[in-house]
């Protein structure tokens, strides 16, 4: 129990401390230190998984470990970026920003350590709400609109997920025996006796509900607005952490379905949603002039790839989990570099931002490399996972899916290339811009560089311990008991 308390408690304390500190300049400094302590606690779990606590309500399995470690790493690196970013944004108070950042980490950790679907829901909702002030950080009319759309869609999605959670409990009725029917291990051990109509309903509602938070098409409409208006750091946290955590909720529902013999039903739905998301992203990425909105559609695409991977069975599942990590790291590069370019030009469309290579050379290079990586080109990490998903499709005899997947990826590559190349290589709009060129300061490029190092590293060499954990997680997911 202490380790779980520690994991959730540390970020809560950091958040409270951030609320208490009165100086805007000193406040951001507690983030890197606090998040590093959290990361250390998470890495202790890698040595040996802590035992279950509170009658099975808290437990970390390999699946949780992957999501939790990714989140923790993203938070640590983003907090270093925040030091410089918040120093540049003296025009805004950062009390709510820093506190809510910590509370998101606390909520995400709660989702990862809880084995109870109700508690998982509470954590997910808390993460959703804590992210709203981050989206509204700029306090202008555009960010207000984005926040409203984010809140409305997020609340609708999270409400549907709650309905799904209740369906799941109903499927386990009448319930006698020890424990609680919403603890995942109880559901798994009684999978054969669950009521099939209620369970099917539960999966659909959980997929739609948490899918809204993930941004799977057709429930992605909040995503371009939110990612477009939120600061780059918030983009990384939303696209890399919150979406991955929402995916964890869907995976739990899938796990129960697989154990109850409904794996094919659930996989078909996942493949359908996955391909639909990739296709939607392809349609909207073409001709996208706003490079932050483009990144949002890229996020829709990669959420689709995750769903598709899990829908393709055990081999696809472990590839999808690897892709979860790769997507998080690469989104870190792209959103932070995009934020730097946005600041250097004072605009985020192709009309304002052209020729970033001259004004912010390092950020522009990182943006270009990030684009090459996210579209699945070797030798970067997303190539490895996307190729494995493709192989899983071909080996599973789903040639139609494989061909569609590759074709859509090619369309997305072309669509993104048009925007990215113009932003990076074009001719700067006017030499004497009002905005001083301050795209590349050491701390602002250090964070995306750290992410890029991770993307290159995982692309060239997959450590054995990582593949074994991913394999274990995929096995758990597809119906073998822990």
């Amino acid at each position, binding site marked *: 129990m202490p380790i779980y308390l520690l994991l959730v408690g540390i970020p809560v304390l950091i958040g409270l401390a951030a609320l208490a500190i009165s100086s805007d300049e000193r406040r951001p400094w507690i983030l890197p230190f606090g998040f590093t302590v959290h990361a250390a606690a998470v890495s202790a779990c890698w040595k040996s998984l802590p035992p279950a606590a509170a009658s099975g309500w808290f437990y970390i399995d390999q699946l949780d470990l992957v999501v939790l470690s990714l989140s923790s790493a993203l938070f640590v690196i983003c907090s270093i970026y925040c030091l410089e970013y918040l120093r540049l944004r003296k025009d805004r108070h950062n009390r709510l920003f820093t506190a809510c950042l910590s509370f998101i980490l606390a909520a995400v950790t709660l989702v990862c350590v809880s084995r*109870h679907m*109700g*508690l998982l*829901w*509470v954590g997910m*909702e*808390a993460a959703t*709400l804590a992210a*709203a002030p981050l989206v*509204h950080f700029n*306090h202008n*009319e*555009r960010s*207000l*609109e*984005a*926040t*409203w*759309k984010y*809140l*409305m869609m997020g*609340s*609708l999605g999270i*409400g549907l997920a*709650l*309905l799904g959670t*209740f369906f799941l*409990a*109903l499927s*386990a*009725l*009448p*319930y006698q025996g020890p424990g*609680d*029917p*919403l603890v995942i291990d109880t559901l798994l051990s009684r999978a054969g006796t669950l*009521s099939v*109509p*209620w369970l099917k*309903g539960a999966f659909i509602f959980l997929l739609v509900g948490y899918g809204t938070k993930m941004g799977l098409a057709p429930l992605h409409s909040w995503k*371009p*607005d939110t990612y*477009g*208006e939120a600061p780059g750091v918030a983009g990384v946290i939303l696209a890399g952490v919150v979406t991955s955590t929402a995916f964890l909720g869907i995976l739990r529902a899938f796990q129960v379905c697989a154990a109850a013999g409904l794996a094919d039903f659930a996989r078909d739905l996942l493949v359908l949603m996955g391909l639909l998301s990739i296709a939607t992203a392809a349609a*909207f990425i073409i001709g*996208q002039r706003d490079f932050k*909105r483009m990144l949002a559609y890229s996020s829709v695409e990669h959420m689709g790839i995750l769903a598709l991977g899990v829908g393709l069975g055990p081999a696809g599942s472990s590839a999808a989990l690897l892709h979860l990590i790769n997507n998080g790291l690469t989104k870190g590069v792209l959103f932070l570099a995009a934020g730097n370019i946005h600041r250097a030009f004072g605009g985020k469309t192709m009309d304002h931002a052209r020729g970033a290579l001259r004004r912010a050379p390092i950020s522009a290079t990182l943006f270009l490399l990030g684009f090459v990586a996210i579209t699945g080109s070797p030798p970067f990490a997303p190539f490895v996972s996307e190729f494995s998903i493709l192989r899983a499709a071909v080996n599973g005899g789903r040639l139609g899916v494989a061909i569609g997947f590759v074709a859509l990826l090619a369309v997305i590559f072309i669509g993104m290339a048009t925007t990215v190349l113009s932003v990076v290589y074009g001719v700067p709009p006017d030499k004497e811009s009002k905005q001083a060129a301050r795209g590349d300061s050491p701390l602002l490029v250090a964070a995306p560089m750290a992410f890029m190092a991770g993307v290159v590293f995982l692309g060239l060499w997959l450590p054995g311990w990582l593949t074994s954990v991913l394999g274990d997680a995929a096995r758990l997911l597809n119906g073998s008991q822990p």
Partner: protein
Amino acid sequence: MEQLSQLILAFIVFLSLYLLGSSSLTGCIKIVALQGMCLGLLPLTIHAGGFHPRALLLASGMFILKGMVIPRILMYAIREVKIRREVGPMVGYTPSLLLGAALIGVSFVLAERLPVPPGLRTSLLIPVSLSTVMMGMLMMISRIKAVTQVIGYLVFENGIYLFGLAISYEIPWLIEMGVLLDVFVAVFVMGIVINHIARAFDSISTEKLTRLSD
């Protein structure tokens, strides 16, 4: 007791329908407060086990939060705004009412097809909760004023909560409290945003929120 809970459930559906056809913002807030109070009474009457200390706790929490605190936040949020009426909803009031009636029918048909959860006194709970969920969603998507969208969200949440009642002995009270708290915080945050919208645009119409698009 069974008749009483049936009566309350029927009243809840009636209130949702009333909301669909009502244009006054303050009126809508009052109705949704009444609906929240009715929900607060239900845990006391719905279960075969009858009166239960935990049911009392949940009932009072529900009654105070959804019946009194949340409506007050909404009232506070629209106090500064001069406009008190929903103008030009995307779906008119009469079509909304007809749609609402159709949704009630659909939910009864759906509920017929699902196995009845054991231990429930009234079979009315599932169809009523489904129809309340759907009418809430209808309000969320068809209204223009930010406040009426939040009211739609509240109705939607109320419907989900009704569903939760069917299993309230299976779900630990900690979770129920967590759900209540989250809903409260959600509405609180929405109230703050409504305030910002009112200040930035001098109105609370989400019609003004149309700058972001592809």
